[in-house]
Every structure is written in C-alpha cells, then in structure tokens.
C-alpha cells in the first residue's frame, strides 16, 4: 500500500514537504517511521527516536501504534509552537 508522508517546519526544511512511501499492508505509523529511519542520511537524523517528533494520521494527532491504510496521510513535525 502507499501512504503520503508530509513534513512541517524544521523537518520540512530537511526532508522536503512530502513524499509517497510504499509499505506492507497492516503497517503502523511506527513501521513507517522505522522504514524512513532505515534509509539513513537526513531521514535517520531528524526522525531519530530520541528527537522530539510528533505525528498525525489523516490530519489528527496520533501515535506510532496507529494502523495505516492505503492512501493514508501521515505527517511528522516538531512540537507545535503556535498561539
């Protein structure tokens, strides 16, 4: 299945605004993060598990246990700082 991955703020500056990622059916948001980390380079650096990275699934705050479906929209971003 394919999911769309979007990045915001500092992550967008490092990784670009969006990319499409192919994943096995039944993958979770954590599986996706693992797949991105496995690419090494900037992905491994800015998505490292020690870093403060928040995620959303289909435009709602989520966590890595969430199961993805084909066509899902996932976003990774730093802690939010609006207001």
């Amino acid at each position, binding site marked *: 299945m394919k999911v769309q991955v979007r990045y915001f703020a500092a992550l967008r500056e490092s990784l670009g605004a969006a990319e499409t990622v192919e994943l096995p059916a039944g993958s979770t948001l954590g599986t996706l993060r693992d797949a991105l980390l496995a690419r090494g380079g900037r992905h491994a650096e800015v998505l490292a598990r020690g870093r403060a990275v928040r995620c959303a699934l289909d435009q709602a*705050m989520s966590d890595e246990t969430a199961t993805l479906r084909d066509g899902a929209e996932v976003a990774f971003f730093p*802690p939010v700082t609006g*207001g």
Partner: protein
Amino acid sequence: MARVSIQTADFDLSAEIAALRAADPGVGAVASFVGTVRDRNEGSAVSDMELEHYPGMTERAIEAMIDQALQRFDIKAARVVHRVGPLRVGEQIVLVAVTSAHRGQAFQACEFLMDYLKTQAPFWKKETTPEGARWVDARVADDAALARWGIQASNA
C-alpha cells in the same frame, strides 16, 4: 460566521467581537485574548517571525477545541483567528474570543481554548534574531497549562 480563520491578514478585535455578539441579545460577557509578537525570546532580540501551519489539520484541530469548549462551559459562541506567514514585532498573531451570559464562563473558556491551542494546534514559529533564524522550542509550561483542565499533553 466561521468559527475559525487561518489567515495572513491582520484582524480587527472590535469588528470580530461586534460580529460574534451581534446575533445574540443574551450575551452579557465577552472575553478575548490577543497574542502578539514579542521583541525578545530565550534571551535574544527578535525582529520578526514566520508562522507555518498544516492547512486542513489546523482548522480541524481548532474546530474540535471549540466543540469541547462549548461542551465544558456555559458559553454562547467562540471565535479563533490565527495568522500565518511573516509577522513583525508588535503585530497581532492570534485572537480567541468567547461570549457568554456571565463573565466567569467566558474567562474560563477563553483560557481553555488558548491553553489547548498552544499545545495541540499545528503551528510552528520561526523567529529571526541577530544570531540568525531559529525554530521556537515548545515549552513544558504550556503542557502544564493544559493539564490543569484535565487534559494530558505531551507536546514539549
């Protein structure tokens, strides 16, 4: 009237409040909060900032917060305006306005919405300082502010 506006343009507090209470003669109280761009942060001078958001999710998140405020408090209406894009020191960033019959609920709902927005609405500030541009760090104090309302946040 829309409850949530994300816009680059400035907003007029008086006009926003007039519109919010115009339709309801039962309004006896209006509480509002306006956040502005400060000239200092984390020990550095700040000249301007850039605000980024997640189009679609930002609006949905704030709509859900207003739904929660309407359930928790005896209020009549709420309105949130948040600017994005480049902003200079002194400019308005955000407006939260709430109407109710009496002041207590309006004050509380206004603070609740602001606390919620700080840690759960997808916005990011990048400020320009003499040392260069930098992304603003989230504050643990903002998570603590939301926890007072019984909502656990782990943003920062």
